[in-house]
């Protein structure tokens, strides 16, 4: 059975008999996919762009999030007249499975009517992309003009190109890597341990017991948030500035502005994110190793794709450093793929991909326009506003 629902925060595709086989061998029978679309699919169905969100993202990259009223997480990039121009492209964004913004995840109801909790199967980046394939099938989109995303979204982009290359015309992996590094797994483990150590986690059954591991999840977010920034950006924004005081308290209150900022980040995150989802999605990222799926040679992952790639990294990103992008580019070159690679100068760390970075925008506009020409899609009307 298939159902479409118009929910308050975008659309829902509900599949009663989805039979989605996951990498760990288990099968998801009931599958709910929360998604949002922007723009219009053309008659040739050749102008669809899939946006893949990062660890804590959702299916609202553009416009206001109907539930929170806050601007979409990529509002500067996606919208009418923006680099991913919804006047020209049909843009699709889906909440990943395992997530907590409407798609099936550990907080969803299992067959017996209670939340899955830890009974939810451990999912992978490959599983997330399989679910996106299901959505595209239902939306009758044969292939994607472009698949784009940053961080974990970039992992999905690479997975798309490697496992479903015939459906990808162009791919833009941003601030990402073909595998999660040891250091990245280490940071995720710190976050997970903070959640597991919270007595309110209750073995994952906190929802049934009407509580939530708020402190654990907040600490996980605080630790992770540091990895999204850079030392230079922290120093520039906060330095050693004191928070609401003139002198040190000689105690453990938030003396420094950076402490107060991190506490705020942690507390506000708890209101919008599910702790179990955090465990599952970080695990999916840790398990990601594209070369390993192809006999240890990354170039082999891209042997059967004719997609054109635009790889983007940022100078101050130490979570997904440029060296990871360079390894990826070398593999793509070895596979004979059509690849562009740009390293953007920025002191904003990993989060730069979410922020206003004019050079990234110019890169993506140029790459998409060239791909549009190759795909036979019309270019935008020439206006007097063409820059430089």
């Amino acid at each position, binding site marked *: 059975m298939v159902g479409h629902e118009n929910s308050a925060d975008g659309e829902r595709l509900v599949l009663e008999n989805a039979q989605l086989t996951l990498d760990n061998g288990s099968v998801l029978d009931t599958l709910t996919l929360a998604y949002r679309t922007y723009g219009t699919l053309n008659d040739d169905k050749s102008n669809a762009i899939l946006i893949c969100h990062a660890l804590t993202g959702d299916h609202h990259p553009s416009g206001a999030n109907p539930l929170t009223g806050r601007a979409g997480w990529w509002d500067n990039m996606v919208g009418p007249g923006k680099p991913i121009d919804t006047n020209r492209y049909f843009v699709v964004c889906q909440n990943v499975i395992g997530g907590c913004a409407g798609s099936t995840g550990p907080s969803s109801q299992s067959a017996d009517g209670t939340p899955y909790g830890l009974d939810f199967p451990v999912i992978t980046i490959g599983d997330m992309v399989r679910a996106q394939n299901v959505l595209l099938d239902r939306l009758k989109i044969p292939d994607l003009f472009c698949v784009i995303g940053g961080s974990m979204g970039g992992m999905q982009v690479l997975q798309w190109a490697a496992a479903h290359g015939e459906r990808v015309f162009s791919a833009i992996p941003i601030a990402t890597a073909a595998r999660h590094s040891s250091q990245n797994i280490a940071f995720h483990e710190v976050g997970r341990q903070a959640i597991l150590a919270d007595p309110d986690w209750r073995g994952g059954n906190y929802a049934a017991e009407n509580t939530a591991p708020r402190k654990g999840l907040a600490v996980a977010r605080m630790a992770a948030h540091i990895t999204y920034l850079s030392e230079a950006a922290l120093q520039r924004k906060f330095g050693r500035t004191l928070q609401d005081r003139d002198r040190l308290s000689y105690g453990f209150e938030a003396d420094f502005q950076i402490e107060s900022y991190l506490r705020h980040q942690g507390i506000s995150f708890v209101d919008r994110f599910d702790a179990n989802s955090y465990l599952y999605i970080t695990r999916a990222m840790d398990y990601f190793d594209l070369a390993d799926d192809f006999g240890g040679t990354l170039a082999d992952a891209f042997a059967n794709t004719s997609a*054109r790639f*635009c790889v983007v990294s940022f100078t101050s990103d130490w979570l997904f450093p440029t060296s990871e992008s*360079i390894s990826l*580019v*070398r593999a793509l*070159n*070895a596979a*004979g793929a*059509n*690849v*562009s*690679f*740009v*390293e*953007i*100068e920025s002191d904003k760390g990993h989060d730069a991909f979410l922020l206003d970075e004019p*050079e990234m925008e*110019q*890169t993506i*506009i*140029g*790459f998409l*326009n*060239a*791909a549009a*020409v190759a795909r036979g899609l019309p270019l935008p009307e020439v206006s007097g506003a063409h820059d430089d």
Partner: protein
Amino acid sequence: MIDPRTSAKGNLNEKRIDLMLIASLVERGTRVLDIGCGNGELMELLVAERDVDARGLELSQQGVNACVSRGLAVVQGNADTDLSYYPDQGFDTVILSQTLQATRRPKEVLQEMSRIGSKFIVSIPNFGHWRIRLALALRGRMPETQALSATWYETANIHLCSMLDLTDLCDELSLSVKTCLTVTNGKVHHSTGRPSAWQNLMAELVVFELTR
């Protein structure tokens, strides 16, 4: 975009001739790698005029970003270290447009080039030109010409050579000069085979078509 004083590339007018000559040697619809593609001017010309599948490698971030925002498939990288990641015979034609003299190991770069492609186009400012010889001989100063416009301490051109020097190195690497195009006072001269001492004296700029 690219600072002309510190760039390996020469003056714009000189470069245009250089690019037109290179384009004249590239066959239609082929796969081309431009090593040191700058801001993509040559690649854009080759795509428009020769309908090639062009890929580029460029060291400077500004150059790469300019290329990609022009829709060209360009990767940031270093000719001295990154060519080894390209597959054997992956390209029909490999181009070094005024790039060789800016590399740290020109011999190794040529070796890699000969592994990656089957036909090669190399252009250099000719250090054997009489004006350069004269400047050094009479003034005792490092020459600054239209093609070599940066001061000795700012120039990216760290391995300058004359067209005969390059021919000797090609001999050593079993690469032979098929076509030799030289530019003197904006005029183009065409020859085949090894260049002469006279050409080496008169040419400001040279474009070699090489084969294995």
